[in-house]
């Protein structure tokens, strides 16, 4: 039984359990961090997106062993930061949210993009969100939400 050390939303954790577990399950079941959702469990929908060292990953596809020494940020942590507040507000104002099931994942994908590229074009936004499925919005207002976050958050990213 190996020990895994990582930092989640700014707190250090050490995990040890037999066998393999998905990061998503540890977040949702052990830590009650339920903002990341399970939409497919197979890496296809992005509902389970979290940040691993500021890059978006599908937490359903990541064994906990793979986060040794990493910094994980879920929406619960991210929404406390100025960048997190900025995206959450921008999404809320843009009509980016309908049923909301995809939204936490979309927020994390948007964060990952803006950290890397604070002033993305429409095509860059669409490309960055293309691993996150949304069945409700048709995407236009999510794209606008990311644009709005980029504009309002100038200097933040």
């Amino acid at each position, binding site marked *: 039984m190996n020990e895994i050390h990582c930092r989640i939303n700014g707190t250090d954790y050490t995990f040890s359990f037999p066998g393999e577990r998905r990061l998503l399950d540890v977040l*949702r079941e052990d830590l*009650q961090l*339920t*903002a*990341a*959702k*399970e*939409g*497919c*469990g*197979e890496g*296809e*929908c992005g*509902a389970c997106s979290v940040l691993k060292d500021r890059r978006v990953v599908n937490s359903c596809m990541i064994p906990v062993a793979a986060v040794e020494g990493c910094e994980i940020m*879920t*929406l*619960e942590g991210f*929404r406390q930061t100025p960048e997190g507040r900025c*995206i*959450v*507000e921008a*999404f*809320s*104002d843009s*009509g*980016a*949210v*309908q*049923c*909301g*099931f*995809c*939204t*936490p994942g979309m*927020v994390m994908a948007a964060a990952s993009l803006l950290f890397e590229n604070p002033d993305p074009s429409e095509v860059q*936004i*669409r*490309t960055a*969100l*293309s*691993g*996150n*499925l*949304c*069945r*409700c*919005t*048709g*995407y*236009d*207002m*999510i*794209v606008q939400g990311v644009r709005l976050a980029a504009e309002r958050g100038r200097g933040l990213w």
Partner: protein
Amino acid sequence: MKERISSPVRRVDAYEKAGGYARYIADIPFDHLLYGKLVRTSIQRGRITGIALPDLPEGYRFISEGDIPPGGVNQINMITSDWPVFTTGEVRFCGQTIGLLVGPDRQVLHELHKAVAVTYDIEEGSSTIEEGLACRGGAFVGEDNIYVEHRLKKGDPDAAFSQADRIIEDVIETGFQEHVYMEPQGITVEYSNGQLVFHASCQCPFYIRKAVAPSVAMNLEDIIVHQVTTGGAFGGKEHFPDIIASALAVAAVAIQQPIQVVFERREDISYTPKRHPSQIIFRTALDRNNRIIAMDVDARINAGAYQSCSAVVLQRTMFSANSVYDLPNVSIRGRAVATNTVPSDAFRGFGAPQGIFAAEMHMSHVARLVGEEESEFKRRCFLKQGGRTVTNGTIHEQVLLEQMWQDISLESGYYEKLKSNPSGSFRGIGVSYYLHGGGFTGNGEQALIDSHVRLKGMKDGRVELLLSTVEMGQGLATTYRKIVASALGIDISRTIFLDPSTNRVPDSGPTVASRSIMVVGRLLQRAALQLKTCWDGTREETVEIGYEHPPWVEWNQETLQGDAYPAYSWGICVTEVEVDRASFEVETKGVWTIHEVGRAIDEQIVHGQVNGGVIQALGYASLEKLELKEGRFYQNTLADYMIPTSLDFPPVYSKLVENPYEYGPFGAKGLGELVFDGAAASFAAAVQHAIGRPVGRIPVTPEYIMELMSDE
């Protein structure tokens, strides 16, 4: 100046959802929670001969027919009661419930589930409409596998056909479509003190209550259904939660501990209902001036292995089979065909998308055959105010289609693009015109639903909205509160709308049929106006009101004659595509829409519905394909069943035209389904123009285009 009701406000649920605070069923903790996994049939048709269970560890149970309590019946009380809770002998489709494995650890359940061995006598089954009609393997519904058949007649089609100069025949087909609500199906049940309490991701809390009651022989009052934040539904959570809830009800009564069933995505794609595939056959009679003098329509929908709501879906398909056209002589035959596939069910549009796709494509084929430009040909036949529908009802409202066309044809550059890209140039533009009747068919609101809403004025100046139609993503929590706040003249922050529970709210009917705003929103507006006369914001006052039927709507449900719907919403969609000459991949270059929905209660929400509905329909038209192999869907993950991503389609241009409806709140009519109804046909018409060959079915995949291109 007073704010227009249509001016957008921030959705009341946006922040909690975007911030990850909202809790969906899988996020809500329960003490001593057990998990359930459905054991299902794995053959298409036959009989179960034996079920061998592995040794169940302590704390694990297998719940099946034998656990139904005394007095309970093995039936789910839906529109009909043909669907059993637990399959015992007859197997009608691959995926019906045999039993429910229940226990504390999901991994252990998974292993146990794999170890259940069911043996069968296998019989030959049917998958397609043709096989169902041919009674492959013998009929299993009546003598002909037809759940229901209807006929409609307008004018004198026989006489008109006998005078035809030319008759054009056509077959139009549509495939299955999976809802892919991003949140899979999920329900948790608790049982204590003789009460069953469900927490469900669902559209219709009162349906669940009614559906499960007979199986556990309980009174309706002892069954409580709480709707929880629902991650999309689109019709897929209208009836199917009844199926899960019935098995859970029996299990909860037997085990008396909270139990949760949340589907995995593969399960959800494989075993939950789909949009009805359709095959619609047209014969159209033209006179010597190439005017349509009669149309004969034979509409068949694949209803699957149990009836569910297929009879009603079939009616919508038939009523939509002339789209927005007023043709003089029409006969329509409709049949809902039983096959050994997962029962088809409600899906945004509820039969209308199939009828409209067929009508639009057929009209465009006729136009091409007589050498006329499609939009001109179609526009000549537009329904107008006072015009007659296929059920011999009247269009009561002013029809703005012509004005909408002037607008959107200009905006999209339709005519120029038509000219600069001739048919067969691999670049094409297509248009579809469509309508959607709001609310239940005919007098269903009065005869079947009789909905009620309640408003509770409180001492602190706030008002609570009590009703059973749910927020499932479409924005009702916001639009309902806006309606009440506007009618009372108070700020929206002084209104409260909580997810409904059957023990707290009156039954305002299901969240379906584009009725939530037009019908139930109207009740809220009326209740608010009444509350305004008797409540001053300093004491408690409750107002409850019920449905009032618009007096001019006349309908005979026996003969299906009269005004099928009190009012219609209208739309036009233009799509431009480019088809790759080598790969036949289609790239969508532009999408332009214009809709008339009476009045928008919130423009941002309406545009959001337009965008979501149009993209979902473009997925249906181009990407979303389900194929059956011995009654099993070949595609069962989101990797093989592809829905649109943010890269698949360009932004959708969306414009609204106002035409307030007297019996809708602030003039609003239906919206959510209309915006799905038309885009598929405009896409297919654009591809047809691009490749210069008639397109007769969706999805229009590169393989299908290749097939069309190699047919000389």
